[in-house]
């Protein structure tokens, strides 16, 4: 196993202060089958998450961000979905080789997930108390008589005012932001070592978005948990992520620290994303530059680099050969044949 880590490009050996990463994903492939068609939703993704680190996965809709997250916990509905290749090592154990029972012990206990839609991710017929207590009951983490105290403590941690009154309320009596706080409290109930937040703020108001992200950041820091933050909002990423993976058409096209990605984007797609983002420091007359074209059909990818049809820098090689994800500078990786220099 040590050899496998050493061989793959995102090795953590050079990451300072960590002996080994908490999560190690190697060439993960997930496909969805529709009759004869095979849609490659995740196509050979490798990355790692160090202890206490926040990794952001950025990309547009359909780039495979959520499917990657779901594949980690094997929550892909099967059929039609199937994880056909790869390894997911969590603390040295391969999640993809585990039995369903072993995996159930990990889910919600060591790895917890927060979903995109706070309005529908709480069960409408159960009280907040019942739902908050559920992960603790499932994993027998907390004694039955201590559950109430723990629930109140969790609600306080996610800064819900007047938790004693709220505990017996139903989800429909909460606003979207409050529901997302309850979801976060549920996710933290068993003090997981890894938190996967799948677009946790997409459905919320802008002011609430910032509060929720601050909360997530604070709580993961307090507990020393790692976080995978999935988003299509680059603005979110800049502030809250330590490292960023940019995904396109089911693969990672660029990976680096937040500073590297924003200051020196080295993949044309990343560059396009940053240019299409409104900035406060730009002049009033500056126009946003969109990325032309549509994301490719994942069931019928173009030859060579999947971004080549939309890429303004594309050369002949791009249309023939698929570029591998290779180091550009230290831990800054890119999958592109062309050297993009601003």
């Amino acid at each position: 196993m040590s050899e496998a880590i050493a061989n793959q490009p995102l090795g953590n050996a050079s990451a300072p202060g960590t002996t080994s990463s908490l999560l190690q994903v190697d060439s993960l492939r997930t496909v969805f089958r529709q009759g004869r068609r095979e849609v490659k939703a995740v196509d050979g993704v490798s990355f790692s998450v160090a202890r206490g680190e926040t990794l952001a996965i950025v990309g547009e809709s359909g780039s495979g961000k959520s499917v990657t997250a779901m594949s980690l916990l094997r929550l892909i509905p099967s059929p039609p979905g199937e994880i056909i290749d790869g390894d997911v090592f969590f603390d040295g154990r391969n999640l993809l080789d585990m039995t369903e029972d072993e995996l159930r012990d990990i889910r919600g206990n060591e790895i917890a997930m927060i979903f995109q839609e706070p309005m529908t991710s709480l069960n409408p017929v159960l009280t907040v108390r019942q739902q908050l207590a559920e992960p603790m009951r499932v994993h027998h983490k907390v004694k039955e008589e201590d559950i109430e105290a723990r629930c109140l403590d969790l609600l306080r941690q996610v800064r819900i005012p007047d938790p004693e009154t709220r505990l017996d309320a139903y989800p429909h009596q909460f606003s979207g932001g409050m529901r997302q706080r309850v979801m976060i409290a549920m996710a933290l109930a068993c003090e997981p070592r890894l938190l996967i937040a799948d677009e946790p703020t997409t459905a919320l108001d802008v002011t609430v978005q910032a509060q929720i992200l601050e909360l997530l950041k604070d709580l993961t820091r307090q507990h020393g948990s790692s976080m995978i933050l999935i988003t299509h909002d680059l603005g979110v990423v800049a502030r809250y992520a330590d490292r960023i993976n940019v995904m396109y058409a089911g693969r990672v096209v660029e990976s680096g620290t937040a500073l590297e990605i924003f200051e020196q984007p080295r993949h044309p797609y990343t560059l396009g994303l940053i240019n299409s983002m409104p900035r406060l420091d730009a002049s009033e007359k500056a126009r946003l530059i969109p990325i032309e074209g549509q994301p490719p059909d994942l069931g019928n990818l173009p030859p060579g680099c999947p971004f080549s049809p939309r890429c303004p820098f594309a050369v002949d090689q791009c249309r023939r050969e698929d570029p591998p994800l290779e180091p550009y500078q230290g831990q800054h990786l890119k999958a592109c044949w062309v050297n993009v220099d601003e």
Partner: protein
Amino acid sequence: MTTETTPAAVTTRATTTPPLRERLGDNKVLGFIGRLIKQRPMGAFGAAICILLLLTGIFADVIAPEGYNHINPIDRLKPPSAEYWLGTDQLGRDLFARIVHGAQLSVIVAFAATTLSIVISAVIGITSGYFGGRFDMASQRVVDGWMCFPDLIILIVAVSVLGPGTWQVILILGLLFGISGSRIVRSSVLSVKQNIYIHAAQSMGASTLRILVMHILPNVMAPIIVLFTTRLAAVILAESGLSFLGLGIPPPAPSWGGMLSLDGRSYMFQAPWLAIVPGVALTIAVFGINMFGDALRDMLDPRMKGAGSGRYVAAVRRDRPSSMRPAGGKAQ
């Protein structure tokens, strides 16, 4: 003159009774009944009929101690009178006593058969809908096959195999309604299982059984309650129909359907009360159950608990600091 009337008005306002909700306090059962009466008067009326039916069934021997089969040949086919409130039949049996004991029989058969049918519907519907795939395919084809046969044919065959009797009727009606009802439960499960909270429960490590019982079942309770009440009424009718055809509970048991057919039809012109009374009893029972069922479904849905949400909204308003209140007037 105006100054003299004002104090009187103030005192009357002060002595008026506090609103209903305050007087009922926090008692959940009383509060529920209060809301039922206030928000769903027809449902409350239906509930009263159901309670009456239940009490009649339970205390049948107290209300009509002479029993349903006390023959009195002298008083044959008497019209309703002070002595015989609802008249007598061709054997001189008191029709009131027979209706009261018939209520007991109806209650037993209806609740037993409906409970059986709901359990069958829930088990088939939830497993078939949740697991989907080949299991769903296979079980739904069995249900299709079962539903291809007309109900009456199944009933006639089953009764001729098992013979007539109370438990046979319960078993057959339970199975019959249970299998067809599984369709309704299944279709609700199909939509419920798409919800993210089911996915969230999986991601939390909940076992399949836990997801079915804790997350799917409570969310399909509304259709199950409706199914229960409509089936309850339908079972009473079906049992009457079976007895009418002579396939149900054999005489002298006082089944309302049997009374309609055996005595009611034969003496329809000499003694019309023999047909009218059990018919009216059936109608009232079915009507009451349906009304109560509809109201129950609406009231049990937590999203419709109006009083609760009002209280929380008030709490939020109180907590909010004054700076967040709209300050339009001050600004201008």
